């Protein structure tokens, strides 16, 4: 259950629309089932009251939509931002990707988002309704007479289990507390891989990346990937490979994707959420974040507007590329 209710958000949006602060509202709209939620733009009270939803399945990070929507919309856009979304919001502002003046950001607290796959692993397929408003999540399937009561904490998405911060770093208005940065265990999985031998790591990634179908969802959902034309879409780049023809192309795509957002990635976890093949893409991003923290000092992309990311910065006494392995396992 989320701390701020759907009704409170609708009322807030309606009042901001009514007093002319904003001209449209970027929000979540319900789908066929209670978990298939689509981002949508609302412009009037009736549609807000009818379609706006806020529940444990509103995972989509809205920050990226602002790039396109602020160009199109007349007037200000109201956007509700979860703490992790605010980091992406700041990062996009740092890169001048949208006009801050055209956005009215309302920070909302987040208790973590649910992963529908985890819900299905407990309750099975055939879900006819999910009620997230109680202490527990009530999942009704067509195969059972009574709803299954699920602990929301047991179906949290990976990125929410390892939530790095419940602090809102950008907002015009807050609903609830500002929140705090959390001491998370998000690098544990990366450390586990680092402790493996190169052969084990190679096998691990070969296996994970072999599932890639190059749908580009990881890239297209990523709030840090905002190039107008991606190198992988540019026929003149020589790497415009529409499909992963072999394991080299799988690796190339994912190394370059992760590298290009290194230092700019806020670790929002959208890449892993949207991957239809469940590839743990966030591990590549976190590896870069962990390395940069260790080599160049702690840095959190999006924590403040205008900060200089490690890869567009330097000091004269940085370690040498060969020294990056010093002090690590001597397995190679």
């Amino acid at each position, binding site marked *: 259950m989320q701390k701020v209710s759907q009704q409170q958000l609708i009322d807030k949006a309606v009042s901001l629309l009514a007093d002319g602060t904003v001209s449209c509202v970027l929000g979540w709209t319900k789908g066929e089932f209670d978990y298939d939620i689509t981002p949508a733009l609302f412009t009037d009270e009736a549609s807000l009251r009818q379609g706006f939803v806020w529940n444990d399945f509103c995972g989509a990070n809205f920050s990226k939509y602002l790039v396109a929507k602020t160009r199109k919309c007349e007037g200000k856009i109201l956007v509700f931002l979860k703490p992790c979304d605010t980091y992406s919001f700041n990062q996009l502002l740092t890169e001048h990707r949208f006009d801050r003046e055209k956005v009215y950001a309302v920070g909302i607290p987040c208790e973590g988002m649910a992963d529908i796959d985890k819900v299905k692993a407990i309750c099975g397929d055939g879900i006819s309704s999910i009620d997230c408003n109680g202490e527990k999540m009530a999942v009704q399937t067509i195969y059972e007479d009574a709803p299954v009561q699920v602990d929301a904490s047991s179906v949290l998405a990976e990125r929410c289990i390892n939530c790095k911060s419940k602090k809102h770093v950008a907002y015009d208005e807050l609903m609830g507390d500002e929140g705090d940065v959390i001491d998370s265990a998000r690098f544990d999985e990366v450390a586990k891989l680092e402790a493996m031998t*190169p052969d084990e790591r190679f096998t691990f990634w070969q296996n994970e990346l072999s599932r890639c179908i190059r749908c580009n969802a990881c890239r297209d959902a990523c709030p840090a990937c905002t190039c107008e034309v991606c190198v992988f879409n540019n026929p003149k780049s020589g790497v415009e490979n529409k499909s992963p023809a072999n394991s080299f192309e799988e690796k190339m795509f994912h190394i370059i994707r992760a590298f290009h957002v290194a230092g700019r990635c806020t670790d929002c976890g959208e890449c892993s959420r949207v991957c239809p093949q469940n590839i743990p893409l966030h591990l590549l991003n976190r590896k870069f974040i962990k390395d940069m923290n260790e080599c160049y000092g702690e840095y959190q992309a999006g924590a403040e507007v205008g900060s200089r990311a490690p890869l567009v910065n*330097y000091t004269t006494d940085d370690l040498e*590329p060969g020294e990056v392995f010093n002090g690590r396992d001597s397995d190679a």
Partner: protein
Amino acid sequence: MQVKEFKPLIVAFCCNWCSYAGADLAGNNRLNYPAEVKIIRVPCSCRVNPMFILRAFQRGADGVILCGCHPGDCHYTSGNYYTRRRMAMLFSMLDFLGIERERTRVEWVSAAEGAKFSAVMTDFAATVKALGENKRLEDLRCKK
């Protein structure tokens, strides 16, 4: 039956101002370096984006070495500092994916260091030769 000796293909990206001139000097001084090393001249080591390195491997390189001016000596003031950070991160990522860390290297070679150029290339070629063929970042389509 004779086993064919493995000859690695090595791509060396050399910055125009220092390392390429260093290679020139090596030649002028009649210093040898392995014939497997193919030099690609770039305006600055900073010009080399990670894609260049991956694509060199794709097209059959067994090792990739990047040479630039010594830190502090960059013709463009700071290019090689950026290179240093980028390559540190890239190499660490390649290692994270299980790709041999010895296949990639960054060396700073000035225009006066013909001998160093020759020594670095000889050493790198020997290292790569010992590793054998690049199997983990190969593109089978590009094999002859």
